C-alpha cells in the first residue's frame, strides 16, 4: 500500500505499528520455533507464542477494527495495515491461527451475539487455542460425506465419531465441529458446533507427518457433549456455515489478525541468495543458466502474485470479485512448493542434510520446508479441489461433485 492513499490517521497507525513491532520484537526462543504455527508441539513454544500474541492484541495489532465488546479496538480500516506490518516485521507467527483465521470470521458471519462476546476476546488474546474438526478418515476432499453423528438429547447434543488432520488439537480448548444430524441428507444433514475439547468424551492422538513433526492429530469423539447454545446457525445449516469458514481458509475472506510467516517474496529472495552462495563444479549455481531460468520464472510468478492482489481490488480490472482471490491458495501453495523444490536442486547433495545435522544448509530448513509445502497443497481443500472450485464458480463449468 503506497503512502499517499492512506488517511492521516491510517498513516499514523502504520507508523505506530512499525515502531511498536520494532521495539517489542521478542528475543528468539532458545529452541528454534517450527516453520509454521500448525507444527508447534513444545509446550514452552506454546507459552512463548501465546505471550507474544497477547502483547500484539493489547497493542491493537489484532482485532483492530472490531468493537470493544468482541475484544476489539474500535478502529476503522486499520486491520489490513496492522497485518501488513506484522508480515513485514519478521516476528513470530500467531499461534492461534485457526481461531483468528477461521473461528473469528465464522462467528462474525454466522454466530450469535452471546457466542461472539464469549469466544472472541480469548481467541484474540491467544488464551483459548482453537482447532478445526472437519475432515474425517472417510471424508477428505468429499467433506460432506462426513459421518460423525450428532444426536439431540434434551438441551444438548451427543457426538460420536472421529476427526483427523486436526492441527493444534493437542493444545486446543475448542473445536469448530461439523457433525451429522441427519443421515439421509448429505449436505442438508450437517450441523456446525463449537465443541469443548476438555471433557471425558474427547481424546487426542498425535499423527506424525512425513517431516517427523506431529503438529496434527486424530481426535476421537466418544459420547462427547455439546450444549445446544453452542450450535452455530440452524440445525442442518452446517454446510453453509462451513463454506464461510473455508472461504477464509482459502484466502478470500476478510482477514482479522495476521498469521505471520515468511512471505513468498522473502523466500524468493532467500532462494536467489542460496543460488548465489552455493558453489558447485567450481562456480555459483546462479551462474548455471538452467537453474537461473527456473529461478527467475518463480521470481516472475511471485511478483505476479503481488500484482494480482493489487488488481483484485480494482473492479474495472479484476474480471469479477472472486476470480483472483479464489486463486490465492492454489497459486501461493504451488509457488511455495516449487521454490522449495528448486532450493533442493540448488543444494544438490547437501539437500540430504536434515534438521540438526551440523553441516546442513540453514539447519535443514529447505528439505523441511519442501516437505511441509504439501500442507499448503493438500489441506483446506487440495489443489485439485481448488481447481474444481475455480472452474465451477469463476468460469461456470459444470459441477464435478
Amino acid at each position, binding site marked *: 500500500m*503506497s503512502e499517499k492513499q492512506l488517511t492521516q490517521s491510517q498513516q499514523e497507525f502504520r507508523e505506530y505499528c512499525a515502531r511498536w513491532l520494532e521495539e517489542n520484537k521478542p528475543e528468539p526462543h532458545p529452541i528454534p520455533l517450527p516453520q509454521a504455527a500448525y507444527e508447534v508441539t513444545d509446550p514452552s513454544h506454546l507459552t512463548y507464542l501465546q505471550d507474544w500474541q497477547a502483547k500484539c492484541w493489547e497493542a491493537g495489532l489484532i482485532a483492530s477494527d472490531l468493537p470493544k465488546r468482541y475484544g476489539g479496538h474500535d478502529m476503522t480500516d486499520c486491520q489490513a495495515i496492522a497485518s501488513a506490518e506484522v508480515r513485514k516485521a519478521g516476528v513470530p507467527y500467531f499461534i492461534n491461527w485457526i481461531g483468528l483465521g477461521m473461528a473469528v470470521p465464522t462467528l462474525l458471519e454466522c454466530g450469535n451475539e452471546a457466542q461472539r462476546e464469549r469466544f472472541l476476546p480469548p481467541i484474540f488474546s491467544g488464551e483459548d487455542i482453537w482447532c478445526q474438526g472437519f475432515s474425517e478418515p472417510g471424508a477428505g476432499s468429499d467433506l460432506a460425506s462426513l459421518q460423525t453423528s450428532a444426536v439431540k438429547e434434551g438441551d444438548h447434543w451427543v457426538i460420536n465419531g472421529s476427526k483427523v488432520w486436526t492441527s493444534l488439537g493437542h493444545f486446543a480448548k475448542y473445536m469448530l465441529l461439523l457433525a451429522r444430524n441427519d443421515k439421509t441428507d448429505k449436505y442438508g444433514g450437517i450441523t456446525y458446533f463449537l465443541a469443548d475439547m476438555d471433557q471425558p468424551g474427547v481424546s487426542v492422538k498425535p499423527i506424525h507427518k512425513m517431516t517427523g513433526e506431529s503438529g496434527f492429530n486424530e481426535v476421537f469423539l466418544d459420547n462427547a457433549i455439546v450444549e445446544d447454545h453452542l450450535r452455530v446457525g440452524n440445525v442442518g445449516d452446517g454446510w453453509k456455515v462451513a463454506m464461510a469458514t473455508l472461504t477464509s481458509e482459502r484466502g478470500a475472506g476478510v482477514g482479522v489478525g495476521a498469521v505471520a510467516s515468511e512471505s513468498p517474496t522473502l523466500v524468493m529472495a532467500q532462494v536467489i541468495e542460496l543460488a548465489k552462495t552455493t558453489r558447485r563444479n567450481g562456480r555459483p549455481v546462479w551462474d548455471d543458466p538452467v537453474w537461473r531460468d527456473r529461478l527467475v520464472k518463480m521470481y516472475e510468478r511471485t511478483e505476479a502474485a503481488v500484482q494480482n492482489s493489487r488488481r483484485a481490488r480494482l473492479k474495472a480490472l479484476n474480471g469479477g470479485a472472486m*476470480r483472483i482471490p479464489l486463486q490465492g491458495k*492454489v497459486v501461493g501453495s504451488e509457488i511455495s512448493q516449487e521454490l522449495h523444490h528448486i532450493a533442493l536442486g540448488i543444494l544438490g547433495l547437501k539437500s540430504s542434510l536434515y534438521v540438526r545435522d551440523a553441516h546442513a544448509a540453514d539447519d535443514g530448513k529447505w528439505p523441511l520446508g519442501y516437505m511441509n509445502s504439501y500442507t499448503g497443497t493438500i489441506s483446506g481443500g487440495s489443489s485439485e479441489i481448488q481447481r474444481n472450485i475455480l472452474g465451477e464458480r469463476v468460469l461456470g463449468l459444470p459441477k464435478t461433485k
Partner: protein
Amino acid sequence: MSQPKDFGFDEDVQMLKESFGRFLEEQQTIEALRPSIKGTEDPIHGADRPAFYDEKAWQQCVELGMHAVSIPEEQGGIGMGLVAAVAISEEIGRHAWASPLSNTLQSTFVLIHCESDAAKALLAQMAEGHRVGLALNGEEGSLAPDGTDVTASEDGRLTGTSWYVQDAMKAETLIVSARSESGTDLYAVTLSQPEVAIHRDRIVDLTRDQAHVELSAATAVRLTEKGSGASSLLASAPALATLVAADMAGAGEWQLQTTAEYAKVRQQFDRPIGFFQAVKHPIVDMMICVDEARSLVYNAAAAYDFDRDDAPRCAHLAKSSASDMGAFSAQNSTQLHGGIGFTWEADVQIYHKRQMHSQFLFGDGTWHREQLAALL
C-alpha cells in the same frame, strides 16, 4: 516516484478501453479477416495471402482518435501514457485485429524517445493518420539495439535488408535502424520510393503481414542525434515489450473464455466435457496464467508512466510471463477443442497462430528472464 494503487487505470482509461472494445466488437474482426485467408489454405498450392486490413475500420479508428492516444498533445495527439496504449493493445489482442494500429502505438513510443524535430514532425503526421511501422531487426532477429543489417552512408542513404518487419504492407513510412561509423541511428524511410523493395514473407500468423525490406541507397531522414539510436531504442524497449505483452494478455483472455464456453456446450459421454477434471483443470490453469500476465502487464505500464527507473524490470516480467502464457493458452485452446480446434474453420487456430507469433516479438520468455537475472 511510486506507482498509483490503481495502475493509473483511471476513469478516462476505463472509458477509452470500453469504447474501443465496443468498436472492435462491432467490426466483427474475425469475420472481416476471413475473406483475406480464403483460398490461401494449402501451403503448397494455395494462393499467396494478401496483406489485409479493413480501411474503413481504420479510418473510423482514426476519427475516434485511438491511433493518437499516446502521441504528445504538442504533435496533435491526445497525450495519454502507456497505460492507455496498453488498454488499447489488450483489446487489439482480444479481437486479433488486423490493422495498422499496433505499429502506430509502437512507433509512437520509439519516436517519443528520439527527441528530434524530425521525430516530432513524423509524430505530427501520425496524428493525422499517417501509417508508420518499425524496421529494427537483422536476419538473426537479434534483440540487441544494434542488431540491424542495414548501413547508412555519409550522405544518409540506407543500404541493406531489414528483416521481420511487422505489418510492412500496412505502412507508408518505416522507422529503420541502421549502422554507420558513428553508431546506430534511426531513420524515417518513405516506402513509395523506387530504392525500397518490400518482399512479402510467407508467415504462419494470419492476422499480420510481415516482410523483409530491401533498401538500395534509399533516401532517409535521420530521427536520432547522431549515434544515439541505440539509446533511444533501449529507452523505448520497455514500452514495446509491454504493448505486445498486453496484446497477448487480451488474446489469452479470449482463448480462455472461448475454451471455457466450448467445454460447457460440447457433449461427450452424456455430459458437457467441462465436467471432466482432465478438461476443467487445464482451463483453470489457463486462467491462472492469463491473470499473472495481465497483472504484470498493468504493472509494467504503470511503471513506465509513473516510475520510469523500474520500467525495464517490470517490462521484462510482463513479456516473460505473457510469452509463456501465450504458448500455454494456445496449446490448451486447441487441445481442449479437440478435432474441431485443429481445423482451419475454427477461430482458435487464428488466435493460436497470433500468440505463437507474438511470443517472439521483442523477446521471448527465456530472453526476458535472462535480462531480469542481471537485475537481481
